């Protein structure tokens, strides 16, 4: 007989009696150069070191249960990352936060620890801030108007790598289908591009892909950075 479906969902509130726990953290500064795989390893070490009573999977190779609902690409910063754990015993949530913050490397900081409210599959979109710096105010304003035209026309395309079965394929996508909202704002020699992009398991767009296409048409800024600022549900509310 198959197991009840709700017990198999990762991140479910109660999982085979093990308490779920969602850690929200930021990844900034030099921590943005920690790749996703390395982040998983670093987090699992930090959790052990902090003495958090992790639940281990059963079987021949027990491993701690850690999951990341929406991995962040290398080189991007975030104010809203999430990591789900399952605990074997209860531990006060504030102790988890303080314990981890005492250990985590510079740039990784736990903001909150709570019981998960939404399923990871409920992530629908994410907000990003792309900060673009230019060598002069004139360049910035020039770029802003060109970028605005390109985004407004909705014709930007990019090659996205994906898989068809086992085969690796590259397909061209229309970026507009993934852009829920955008705005441009100039501040001196800087332009801030705010984006709300499709995110999650159904449709997802890496903002770097959009930036690549945009810079190809409007020119490349002298310096730029990407920060993820929020994860959202389909109804537009914060994913929690």
């Amino acid at each position, binding site marked *: 007989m198959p197991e009840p479906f709700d017990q198999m969902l990762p991140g479910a509130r109660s999982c085979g009696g093990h308490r779920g726990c969602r850690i929200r953290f930021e990844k900034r*500064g*030099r*921590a943005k*150069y*920690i*790749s996703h*795989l*390395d*982040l998983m*390893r*670093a987090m*699992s*070490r*930090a*959790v*052990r*070191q902090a003495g958090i009573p992790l639940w*281990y999977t059963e079987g*021949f190779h*027990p491993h701690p249960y850690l999951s990341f609902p929406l991995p962040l690409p*290398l*080189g991007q910063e975030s104010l809203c990352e999430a990591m789900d754990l399952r605990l074997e015993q209860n531990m006060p949530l504030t102790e988890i936060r303080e314990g981890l913050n005492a*250990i*985590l*490397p*510079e*740039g990784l900081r736990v903001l909150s620890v709570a019981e998960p409210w939404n399923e990871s599959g409920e992530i629908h979109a994410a907000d990003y801030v792309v900060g673009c710096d230019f060598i002069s105010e004139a360049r910035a304003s020039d770029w802003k108007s060109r970028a605005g035209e390109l985004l407004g026309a909705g014709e930007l395309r990019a090659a996205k790598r994906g898989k068809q079965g086992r085969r690796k394929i590259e397909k061209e996508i229309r970026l507009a289908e993934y852009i829920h909202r955008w705005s441009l704002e100039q501040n001196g020699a800087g332009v801030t591009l705010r984006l709300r992009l499709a995110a999650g398991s159904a449709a997802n767009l890496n903002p770097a892909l959009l930036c690549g296409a945009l810079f190809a048409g409007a020119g490349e800024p002298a*310096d730029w950075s990407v920060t993820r600022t929020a994860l959202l549900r389909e109804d537009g509310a914060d994913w929690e």
Partner: protein
Amino acid sequence: MSFKAIEPLLRQVQKPGRYTGGEPGSIDKSAAQNAGELPLRYALCFPDTYEIGMSHLGMKILYGLANSREDCWCERVFAPWTDMEKLMRAGGTALWGLESGEPIAGFDLVGFTLQYEMSYSNILNMLDLAGIPLRAAARGGALAPLVIGGGPCACNPEPLAPFFDLFVLGDGEQAQRELLDLLAAHKKRQSSKAEFLRAAAKLEGVYVPSLYTVTYNRNGLIEAVEPAPGAPARVKKRVVRDLDSCYFPERFVVPLLEVVHDRTVTELFRGCIRGCRFCQAGYLGRPVREKSPAVVDAQCRALCENTGYEEVSLCSLSTSDYSALPELLDGMLDWTLPRKINVSVPSLRIDRFPREMMERLALLRRGGLTFAPEAGSQRLRDVINKNITQEQVLSTARQAFSGGWTSVKLYFMIGLPTETREDIAGIAQLAQAVTDEFYRNPDKPKGKGVTVSLSAASFVPKPFTPFQWEAMDTKEQLDEKQVLLRSHIRSKKISLSCHHADISLLEGVFARGDRRLADVLEAAWRAGARFDGWDDQFKPELWRAAFESRALDPRDYTREREESEILPWDHLNYGVTKAFLLRERARAYRGETTPNCREACAGCGADECRIQGG
């Protein structure tokens, strides 16, 4: 310079995590630095990639020890990969310490660990990227920066002599402490470099190459090595007598990107009782000194707690020879099992190990089983004093196969002294016998084949071994033997990998090289030599041209040495005497083995050896 300054480079390189620093456990003393309370800045350099350097226990020990002093900030520096080097040169970014992000040219001490001859070009490259003049003589009379080196290759550092101010021979813990003390005092006194070096040469284990003049005769052989007044005629290596009371770090810097050995590690002992005649590490580390099991246990426990690592490795040259291994493992498993920490015991001889203990260690779950018979016939194994018999290999393999293992690695060397074509054929025969053993096993796992990975390294004669006088095979000989070995392999289950003969030969040249090679090294580096130990980076033609430009023939360095010759490292004293090495050489030629140090003392000359019954 700060992190901000290197950030634009990080975006353009592979594995930016190699260069960011800020890992858990890394030491930040910027507050003391800004308050002007840090007299000593120390760059501890590993002349290879971050992933390799961060796996090295010696770096961790010296880093922790130097940073345990309030007057010193020790930072890590690794060789930038070629992509980063290009960007650094294009943008004029000087090599920085990972902890502060500040250029190391302004530091007091720049120390290199000398693990492998093929990393020498990286040392020059790192000095150059730092903006430090390569030659010690060109760095002027000021005390800083002082360029020092230590590690196994310091046993013959002659090819590096002109680039370094001093070398530390032997164990580094006490010598580093004394050097830092001395440096702090001389910095306060505003001494010149020459004053400091004259004082440093009086410390045990410190070799100041500029205080020794080497002259050569017309045949290019060394005529004499003259010490300056006040410098010892022979420099004795440093030995830590008591490992239990010796400093050992309680925490490691835990890398964020995956490195080669990513785990907690401690030594069980230094040195080795075995006396394999090709093995330099075994002779350099004499006498054997063990840590007590309680100390090992406590060190591992503290490290696991402070790092979060899930694996602890007990490392030594021949782990099975640790006298208290069963007691140690029994005690450790009591706390590692509940914490789900894996204990890994490399170079364990499982044929002598209780089955039940193996299962507790979960050894059977591991990927593969490794043997190092080193030579293909019993005759040649006797010559090299490698005491492992074919029957031992086969019986262990049998035991492992019945326990469900399906892969075996076998390590051999080719080019050993007295080697014949039969010895080479014997390598393939032994691999075949292991393969046959698998299929003879009645309870072998169904539907699974066996993989036997055969690795054939080239024998490189090294200083302070009984083979230090031997000729090294030529490129033609090594290539021919590799082809011969391959022709003897009949089974598809056996895969063979051989070392790049050109790399081994260059290693052989520098291992027994003299000071004249410094010019060759510099010429090769100027022509672009980097990461020479990496098959995909090594460029043999650069080195050929470098030798030609200096009118030196590499074959003069790989040739057989006369027993009467002055060897480039004869003024360095590693305890083992030349008389002992000559006796061992003669025994090798007679095919006589020498018992291990616990069975009978062979009179090697190592100081203060405390092995019982010797």
